[in-house]
């Protein structure tokens, strides 16, 4: 299967390739690329995320042709896309629900990495680049949500930019800088539009580095053991191209269900009310993919740290902001917080269960973030926030230390060839 690319038989292809080896590169990275033969469907979500990135860029570039980034026209231009522009409703719903589908793919991809220890050596940089992509996605999604200039756009933008005012000394200066004025207004909308168009292409660049790092260290696999030789791998094409394409097909069925039958299910109806800087909606919530962070942000009690000593060391507002950003930044050190040398949770009898507690914790935080911060929801948010950090900072190092992992198979090929009984 490996060796000189078959397509080099073509004279034109050969001519180009000798001067710019793009065909050789394609052959190596998309056709011959040796992939572990035991990858499960959990390994589809990387390519699905890549597929969604393309869908978002294409639909976004088209929407930009009819969108007007001005406070007086933005809302109307989006409604015009919905009513007057040919298939505008379709392309806007593709873009709107595409954001959710992108986050679904990326979150599953991320949890898969956590379950199978894909962040561990030698894949730390691969993991880091993934977190950078997540952060860029969050910034892009947030600014994109502001563009329709509905009530949630406006007040979401106001609340999130005000987070930066919690930074001591320079906070208010930074917020004014972000706004380009003294409130979220036309300059804010214009710069968000500019950045919303730019950042996806930055993501493309980081995705390139992510894939480069992946192809250097090779894919992890459900057993979490290294590739020992050619008997452990199969070429990427046709095996995983076919499998990924099948995954895209199934994923698109779900995507199409949202686009055609429940296009506004994941959105907030308040965003169909034009932005009104003089009136805040009664209950502000971000899109679902931001809810866990939102729950963490609102979970801190007054005078969180130091209150029992009678003074305020860190005000609740700042503590919330620190915890919210920390919840993601902490993932950067996950490769070192996890002290276990075994990658796959399949061979880690304790972590295997504790991992699901973390998933449940994230789901609970998502629910808590959707509720007003009072009563049981507030306590779920507080417990969830506590567990989130407890899990990463305390449990991950501790379990790796005292857990006795099961015996690892000798190679990927061995259990495959023995029918999975090894």
């Amino acid at each position, binding site marked *: 299967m490996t060796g000189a690319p078959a397509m080099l038989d073509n004279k034109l292809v050969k001519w180009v390739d000798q001067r710019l080896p793009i065909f050789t590169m394609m052959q190596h990275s998309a056709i011959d690329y040796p992939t572990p033969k035991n990858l499960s469907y959990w390994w589809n979500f990387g390519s699905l995320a890549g597929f969604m990135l393309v869908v978002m860029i294409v639909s976004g570039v088209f929407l930009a042709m009819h969108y007007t980034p001005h406070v007086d026209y933005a809302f109307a231009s989006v409604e015009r896309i919905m009513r007057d522009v*040919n*298939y505008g409703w379709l*392309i806007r719903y593709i873009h709107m629900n595409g954001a959710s589908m992108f986050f679904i793919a990326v979150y599953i991809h991320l949890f898969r990495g956590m379950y199978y220890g894909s962040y561990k050596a030698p894949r730390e940089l691969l993991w880091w680049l993934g977190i950078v992509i997540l952060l860029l996605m969050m910034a892009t999604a947030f600014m994109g949500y502001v563009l329709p200039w509905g009530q949630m756009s406006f007040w979401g933008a106001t609340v999130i930019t005000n987070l930066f005012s919690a930074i001591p000394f320079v906070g208010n200066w930074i917020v004014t800088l972000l706004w380009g004025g003294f409130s979220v207004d036309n300059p804010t909308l214009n710069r968000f539009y500019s950045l919303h168009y730019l950042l996806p292409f930055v993501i493309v660049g980081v995705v390139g580095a992510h894939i480069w790092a992946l192809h250097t260290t090779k894919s992890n696999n459900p057993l979490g053991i290294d590739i020992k030789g050619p008997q452990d791998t199969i070429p990427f094409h046709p095996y995983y191209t076919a499998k990924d394409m099948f995954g895209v097909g199934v994923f698109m069925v779900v995507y199409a269900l949202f686009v055609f039958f429940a296009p506004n299910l994941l959105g907030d109806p308040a965003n169909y009310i034009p932005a009104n800087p003089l009136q805040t909606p009664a209950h502000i919530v971000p899109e679902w993919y931001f809810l866990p962070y939102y729950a963490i942000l609102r979970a801190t009690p007054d005078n969180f740290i130091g209150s029992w000593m009678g003074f305020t060391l860190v005000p609740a507002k700042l503590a919330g902001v620190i915890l919210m950003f920390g919840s993601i930044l902490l993932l950067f050190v996950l490769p070192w917080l996890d002290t276990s040398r075994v990658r796959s949770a399949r061979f880690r009898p304790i972590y295997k269960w504790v991992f699901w507690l973390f998933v449940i914790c994230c789901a609970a935080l998502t629910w808590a973030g959707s509720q007003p911060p009072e009563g049981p929801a507030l306590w779920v948010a507080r417990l969830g926030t506590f567990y989130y950090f407890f899990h990463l900072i305390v449990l991950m190092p501790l379990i790796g230390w005292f857990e006795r992992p099961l015996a690892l198979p000798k190679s990927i090929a061995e259990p495959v060839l023995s029918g999975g009984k090894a």
Partner: protein
Amino acid sequence: MADTAKPGHPGGAHDDSNRRDFLFMLTGAAGAVGVASVAWPFIHFMNPSADVLALSSTEVNIEPIKVGQSITVVWRGKPVFIRRRTSEEIKQAADVNIKSLRDPQPDSARVKKPEWLILVGICTHLGCVPLGQKLGDPRGDFSGWFCPCHGSHYDTSGRVRLGPAPANLAVPPYAFLTDTTVKIG
């Protein structure tokens, strides 16, 4: 897969490869139809939208226009020339030997009422707006319009007489709603 390729398997390897070719082409065809059906909404998205099409007719009150006077109105974002021709201009337009024209057309085919000449004011060469609407404008060698971009001359019927333009100034669809109101588009 390994089983079906075994020699001696009922049907043999030959039938199996036919089946695979068929499935491969069927999948490819379904994929092509899928891509095309997604591509069309994106292409059509760039076509004029309903609100743009809704602006595709313009009503003009022509009552204030004096004989010999011209006005320019906007229709679909383009200038439309409305000239109330003098009897001299009408005669000049009618007396031309049609066979000598680059784009042969009698004046009668270009107007509904001889007094009113209505044209899309865009030079058929490369889309500039010809001069000749205002009093001081150069009107070219044939008393009609003169395009300053590349020097095309149009006569009092808006027909090209000289210069690089390949065709006469276009006549937009229009109708006289009343004696004093014309609807363009």
